[in-house]
Structures are given as C-alpha cells and as structure tokens.
C-alpha cells in the first residue's frame, strides 16, 4: 500500500466517513493495480498469438485462401469503404422519415486483422439484425471450451495468457490501443464528420477572438516579377506598357501597336505560391478522466468512449484546430502528453476529484489561456470521491466556471450503486451550481452499461 495514500485515508477518517464511503476507499486502497501504461507491443504479435490467441476462434474462421495460399483478407483503408458515406447518411436520415430506426452506427473501434499491428480504427458500422442465439450466453457460467491436442493430464494447466490482451479482443474501450497517436487522430477526424452530420450536434459558439494559428494555407495571391507559377497576363501587359512609355517606344497613346513592344524579362509578372496565415477562433479542450481503481471495467470504457466521441467531434468542428489537454487523476492529477496515453492508461489508486480541477485551474492561470481561448472542460468519473462532500472540489469548480465556456461532467454510475446518487453528483447538486449557471455547467449521469446512442445523447446534453 502506498504510504501517502494511507496517511490521506487516516486524515479523511478523522474527518468522519460514512460506512459505504469507507468501504469504497478501502477497496481502492487495497487494489493491487498500478497505473503502468500498457506495455507497447513490439515486434511480431502474430507469433505471440499463434499459440493461444486463435484458440477460441470459431472453427468457421479457417478458410482456404488463408490456410493454403497465405492470402489474408483484403486490406483497405476504411476510407474506400465509406466512399459513399454522405449517401449512406442521407439514406439513414430517410429511414427515419420512413419510420424505421436508423442503422448506421458510429464510434466502433476495431482492430483489423488478427495478429496484425493492431491499429485502432474508428469507422461507421452497421449490423444486420436477425433472430440468432446469443453467442455469449452460458447457462452454467462455465469457462469457455475448445479443442486441443497433445500431452497433459486432465486438469493440468498447459499455458497462460495475460488477461489484458483478452480485454483488447473486446475491441472497444481503453486498454486495446496499440496504435500510435496519429491513427487515432486521423480516424477521429472522420468520426467527427459522421457525428456532426448524423446527430446534428449543436455547434459551439464562435467567441470571435481572432488570433493567428499555426496553420497556414497556400494561395496564389501574391505577385512576383520574373518567375512564379502562373503568368498574370493583365499585370504583365500593364508593366510592358509602362516600360515602353519610359523607353519612349509608344509614340501614339491612342494607337498602340503591340507588335512593336519591347519586352524586358522583368516585365513578366507571375502569381506565386505563398504561405498565408489563417485566422480562426480557437478552443482549448481539457479532458479529465478519473482513473482510480473503482473505474475498472465498464465505467472506464464508457468514459473513454464518450471522450473519443467528443474529441472526434471537436476535431472535425474546429477542423483539426482544437487544442486538447489531457489530465488523468486518482488522488493526484497529472497531465499526459497525448490522447493515446490518456486513452490507454490503466486504472488504479484512490479518488480525489478536486486534484484534477485544481490542475486545470493552475494550467489556465500559468499559461494565461483565458484571453486567447474558448475553454471547455470535460470530466468523466464514476462519481466516487474520497472528498465525499466536495469541500475541496466545489471551490475549484467555481473557479473553473469563472472562465470556462462549458464544463461537462459525465458520471458513469456503477450498476451496484444505481439506486443512490453518487458522491460527486450529490455535492454538485447541493452546491446549486447547476441552477446558478446552467449555461456553463452540465451534468450527465449514465448507467455503466449503455450503448453508443446513449453516449451521444449524453454529449448533446453536455454541449447543447
């Protein structure tokens, strides 16, 4: 057990704790987990998987192309698969008008290819519903069974596989990402496009603070003498006339004979490709994620999935110009460098929500972000907080509200605590901030086992 955590616990205990609060804290305290980032998988993952990875594949997964000719299923960028994306979305809208539920879904993360490098791709998907038996159903809760060959007594263990990899097979949520940051970003951009078009999320307000961004566009607006990309004929002709006047080569201004023009090389005026600074209003998004021990499982998956959606949508809405900061917190908060780390860090430790809020306030202050940025803060948690009445969190929250354009808090409520309100929810409601500044702060409580549609509904609530 971490000493600092234990002493923190002792202090909290002195201040008085409810029995359930104590139980929760102890559970987190005693958890053996750490925040170690997931190990990067290097080299050939196929060789790893060849022993057990495919063990519980359906026997129908085998096919001649693969087995005999070593032809793997065709690979393509998913862009080509959704080339008719607009058309599809249009069709989907029409479905709704015809009275059928929509069919295109978003935000599925898939890891294409077994044993491939396993990159994360976000794509629009659909499913064809049929009456089928539930493949996940197991009446006697027995462990999975498959075939096997070779030596070994009944009951003998013949191999092991780390649990984490198994989580990854789920294909969704944190802990599966082996892809680099770039892949998340580029596909998130496309996901954002789908989100906006499909769900008609309300646009964020332009705050009008125009300032230069590091983005440049290249335009053919500048003129240049002597060389360039396109000859500007009108300017060139003007220049030639000017030159000829100077040379006295233009006797009668009313009767110009172009064939007699003298042309200097410097008279040619070209349009030249030039770098232009682009001006747009800009936004800074803070993503805050509770990665304490209690967030294990679905709660984390949910929060992260929602943040992926928000992140994607913002990327699209602001044409890749949003700046994002990622903050993880347990009892202490830290900033991580990219979405990849944010997305993949494992849960462990205790919970103090205020630490994250405080860090945001510090960053904003130190970097003087208020003057230049629209600031948005999205926080995902399961609602457990050792600081159970928000004594520390609420002041920090108030501070945040003084500059933020919107603070959106998502509480993924555990099924076991579904009946009662969580601590974070409690103290935020009690503080009255929700009524006082409904434009600035939104709270959304979702049960931990909801689908994407509910998540997107949640985003609407957070940013509408």
């Amino acid at each position, binding site marked *: 057990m971490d000493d600092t955590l234990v002493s923190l616990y002792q202090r909290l205990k002195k201040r008085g704790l409810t029995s359930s609060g104590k139980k929760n804290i102890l559970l987190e305290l005693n958890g053996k987990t750490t925040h170690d980032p997931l190990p990067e998988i290097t080299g050939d993952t196929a060789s790893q998987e060849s022993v057990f990875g495919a063990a519980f594949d*359906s026997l129908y997964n*085998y096919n001649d192309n693969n087995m005999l*000719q070593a032809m793997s299923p065709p690979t393509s960028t998913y862009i080509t698969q959704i080339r008719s994306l607009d058309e599809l979305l249009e*069709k989907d809208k029409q479905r709704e008008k015809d009275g059928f539920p929509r069919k295109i879904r978003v935000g*599925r993360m898939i890891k294409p290819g077994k044993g491939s490098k396993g990159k994360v791709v976000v794509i629009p998907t659909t499913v064809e519903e049929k*009456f089928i038996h*539930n493949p996940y159903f197991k009446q006697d809760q027995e462990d999975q069974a498959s*075939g096997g060959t070779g030596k070994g007594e009944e009951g003998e263990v013949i191999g*092991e596989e780390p*649990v984490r990899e198994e989580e990854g097979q789920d294909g969704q949520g944190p802990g599966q990402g082996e892809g680099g940051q770039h892949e998340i970003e580029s596909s998130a951009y496309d996901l954002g496009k789908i989100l906006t078009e499909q769900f008609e999320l309300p646009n964020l307000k332009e705050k009008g603070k125009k300032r230069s961004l590091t983005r440049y566009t290249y335009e053919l607006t500048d003129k240049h003498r002597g060389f360039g990309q396109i000859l500007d004929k009108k300017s060139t002709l003007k220049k030639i006339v000017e030159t000829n006047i100077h040379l006295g080569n233009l006797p009668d201004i009313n009767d110009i004979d172009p064939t007699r023009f003298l042309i200097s090389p410097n008279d040619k005026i070209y349009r030249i490709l030039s770098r232009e600074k682009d001006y747009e209003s800009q936004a800074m998004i803070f993503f805050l994620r509770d990665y304490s021990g209690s967030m294990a499982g679905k709660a984390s998956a949910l929060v992260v999935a929602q943040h992926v959606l928000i992140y994607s949508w913002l990327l699209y809405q602001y044409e890749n110009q949003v700046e994002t900061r990622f903050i993880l917190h347990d009892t202490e908060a830290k900033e991580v460098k990219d979405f990849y780390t944010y997305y993949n860090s494992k849960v462990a430790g205790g919970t103090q929500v205020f630490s994250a809020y405080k860090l945001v306030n510090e960053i904003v202050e130190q970097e003087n972000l208020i003057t230049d940025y629209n600031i948005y803060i999205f926080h995902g948690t399961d609602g457990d907080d050792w600081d159970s009445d928000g004594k520390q969190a609420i002041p920090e929250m108030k501070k945040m509200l003084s500059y933020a354009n919107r603070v959106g808090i998502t509480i993924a409520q555990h099924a076991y605590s579904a009946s009662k309100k969580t601590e974070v929810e409690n103290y935020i409601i009690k503080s009255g901030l929700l009524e006082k500044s409904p434009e600035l702060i939104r709270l959304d409580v979702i049960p931990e086992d909801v689908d994407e549609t509910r998540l997107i509904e949640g985003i609407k609530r957070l940013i509408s």
Partner: protein
Amino acid sequence: MELINQHTKRIMEGCKERAREAGLEFQDESLEYIVTNRDLLELTPKIMIPTLYDYWVQDVEVLKEKGKYELYPSNPYETVINTRPAISFYNDNNPDWLNVMIFYHVLGHIDFFQNNLFYRHTWDYDFTGQALSDKRVIAKLRAEKGRWVDYVIEFSRGIDNLVGYYNELSLLDSPPSITHSKKMNFYFDHFLQNIKKINISNYIKEVDRYNQSLKHNKERGEKHFFSKVERKYPEFEELFKKSLQKKSTSKKDLLQFIMENSSILKKEENQWMKSVMQVIRKTSLFFQPQIRTKIMNEGWASYWHETLFMQDDRISGHEVDFARVNAGVTAMPRVGLNPYALGMRLFYYIEESAEKGRLSYDFQRLNDSEKRKKFDSKTNEGKNAIFQMRKNFNDFLFINTFIDQDFINRNNLFVSGRRLNKSKMVWEYYVKSRNAKQYRQMLFDSLYHPPHIEVDQKKSTEDSLYLTHKFEEKPLVKEYLLNTMIGLEYLWGGSVNLETSEYLPESESKEYAMYTSFMGSPGEEREKPEMKWQRVLYTIKDRKLIREQL
C-alpha cells in the same frame, strides 16, 4: 480478375486426370481466376459470388464479433465456390508445386460440392448465372421503387437464416415412396393414436383387421377396411381431408409463409416484393450446406491434397516445401479447433476402420480390448467407406457417428478450458477432459445452429402472425429483436408475436454479484446467481415492441 495462364491451366488438367483415377467425380469444366487485393475487396462483401445482387450494407463495415457465423452462415472468403462450372480464386505468384497441391485441395472441394447430398438443391443450376439475373431484377426494381427495394431486402435478410433448408432437401431427395396409402397412414399413425387414443390391444386388432382385409382381396381390401371404419368413426373422412390440406402448408418456412399469406403482399401493387424475397430466400438456401459441412468438406479436401500430392511425381524436389505448408494446414493445434486437421484425421480413421471391418456389428459387440486392438477382417472397403460418408453425411452426423474414444485416444485429443487465475491475472488454459462424449459435446456447441422458429398457425390470425421459438436452452439476442420484428411487421402487414424463452437471474443474488465484481475484470468468478427459464411473448404493433411474461 483474369483467368490463369495456359501453363497453370495444364497443371490443373493434370491434377484432374489423377484425381479422377483416384475416384473423385466432378464436372469437366472449371474456371480458375487470378485475384488481386482489389478484386478481393469487391468479392468479399459479395461472399465471393461476383454476380451477387447489390445491397448497401455491402459497402459498410459490418460488425463482426462473436456470433458472426450465426448472422452470416456463409464463408465470406473462400477459394472455391459451388457454381457450374466451379470457380476458384488464386494468388498470382503461387509456385507451380504449390498450385498442384492447391488444385488437389480445390478438386476435393468440387467433388464434395457435386456429390454430397446436402448440396443436392444446388446441383441443377449455375448459381452465378441465377444470381446475375436476380441482380438485374433487383436493379430494375430499384430503378422503379427506389429505397423500398432495400427495405424489403433488409427485412427479408432479417429472417433469411430461418429458411427451411431441410424441407427443401427432403423434397428433392425423398426415398422411394412406400406403397401404403396416405389414408392408411393417417388412420394408423395419427387418427387412432392421437385423436382416438385407443389402447394398444385395440390398435393391434385394427392392424390385424387391416391385414386380413388385404389378404381377402388385394385390390379392394383397403376400401373394404375403411368402409367399416367410416361406420364406426363417421368423422374420420372429414378429418382426413382436413389433414391433407394442412400438410400442404405445414412445411413452409417463415419467408414462404409470409409470401403466401401476408395481407400486404397480396395487394397488386406489392407483388414485386415477392420477387425480392424469393431472391433472398434462394441465396440463403444456396449457402446453407457450406456451413453445415465445414469439417467434412475441409477434411475431405485435405485428405485428397495430401494423398494425391504424395503420389504425384511433380512433388519431387519440393517434398520439404510441401511438408511445411501441409503441416501448417493440417496440424492439430495445441489449443483450438482446426476443421482441416480434424476432418482429415476422421477420414483417415474411418478409412482404416472400414479397411479392418471395424464399422461392423461384430466389432461393436466385442468387449475384449485385446481382441478389439487386433480386430482386422481385411475387408478392403476403406475407400468405399469414405466415399459413402462424403455422399451421405454432414458435420453433425460425421462427428456424432465417428468421434469415439478410440479416435480421441489415438490423436491425443482433449477438451481444453480457459479459466482466470486471479492471483497471477492470467488466463490459464488447461486440459478439461479427454472423454469422447464431452469432446463431441464441445464440437456440437461450436457448430452452426440457427434458432428453430416456426409459424404457429393455430395462434396466428389474418392480421396477427404468431411465431414460436423452440426451447433449446439458448436465448435469442435481445437487441436484435426490435429491428427484426419491425421488418416482419412490415412484410406481414399486421402485428407479429414471438414466443421465446429467456433466462432470468433472480434479483437478490444480483446485487451481491455486482458488488463482488467491483474491481471487475472480465470473467471474474462471481457467486453463482440462481437463474431460471421463463417463457416470454414479444409483440410488435405499430413499430412498438411489447414484452410480456407468459
């Protein structure tokens, strides 16, 4: 897509000659194409049938998780397709020796397609040709009706896994008709037993009386017999007539039933929908046998590529190459199920057993293990036996009949299990059982098995369709119910009921289980909650789904 070159085609023809000598039977013509990645991109959504009808879902990534084979009971990515002539697809850079091996494998498949009785309904036409004309029909309809064609395709596909595949087969390949009249069958099999429920001695008396009547007069005996029956049971004649009518409709699958009885499809302006539904149904029927013979089909092809290539002179110089590739295909995995390996071993096992006369009653009666080991009646029937299996069996029969303890022991097979070791946070793979019965059960559980859902004609009315899902200890996927049933309601033109079974956890244990999984990692052991089955009825009306317990 282009055809293989002349040189490679000659290799194929050489393979055909040798395969025929070994006893395989297949049509002379076959088409072999070289495919690129781009070709495959276009082919895979169309299940490798180049001429399959267009449908927008083919352009979208479809969720393929566990259960994908329940949704799509057809291999989307196969080398050979069952058409006339058979079409197969190849890499453009296979070396010749490898092509020889692949060609033998392919010929094994073609032989299987064209001789196994579970493919009987695909023998009389070329599916690609059929599909092409269907594709044109659908394209033409789409030009006229627009998106409604896609809705009908979607809704029909929603129930295309419930096609009456076995009904269709039994129509085609019925055994030579038995000489008894329908009337007599009805009287003895149904009327006396189910309606009159007479006791055994009376039943036997009736049988006796029937036989006596026939003995007296061969031609008029039956008439004479039934004249007495009519006096005794005046209602018999009426019931018999009714039963004849019923028979004609009872063998319809859901798609057929809807096509014949739906109020909305009866309307003149909706006739076109039936053509679309027909296409979906035919396509689904075509793919049914493949997934039901996966182990046999791959086993058969592997058996032949190994057997034939080893005898082929073209192997010389590539023995090691072949060994490597072949081992990759047909080695039994330490954990997992490889249909190639399992099927091939079963065929070898059957061949050997038949060769020694062990598929006989004499052998089965033998209890002495020493004698069993030495039993060999040198029948020389091995090849004949496997050709019989290839003709008459599907995966279920194959596994159920031939996987016995001898086979398990000889191949060192076991059922493997996976469990969570919490202290080490690893999945442990372990040997669960070496019992043949359990191994068979494990295989059965992994075989394709669509739900058994039928129209309950008694409970259905003119506007309300009543479906019954037969209880097999397997619940349906709940999330899919709404959309599937919306589709059904649309096609049926009225409300639709589905009676099914659900597995309900008792509520008290629930909370505790949730709590213990607090630090939840998947598969964590929980207190086993008490659970029970319950019959529930889903009703869709005006696109609203209602659930009630029965």
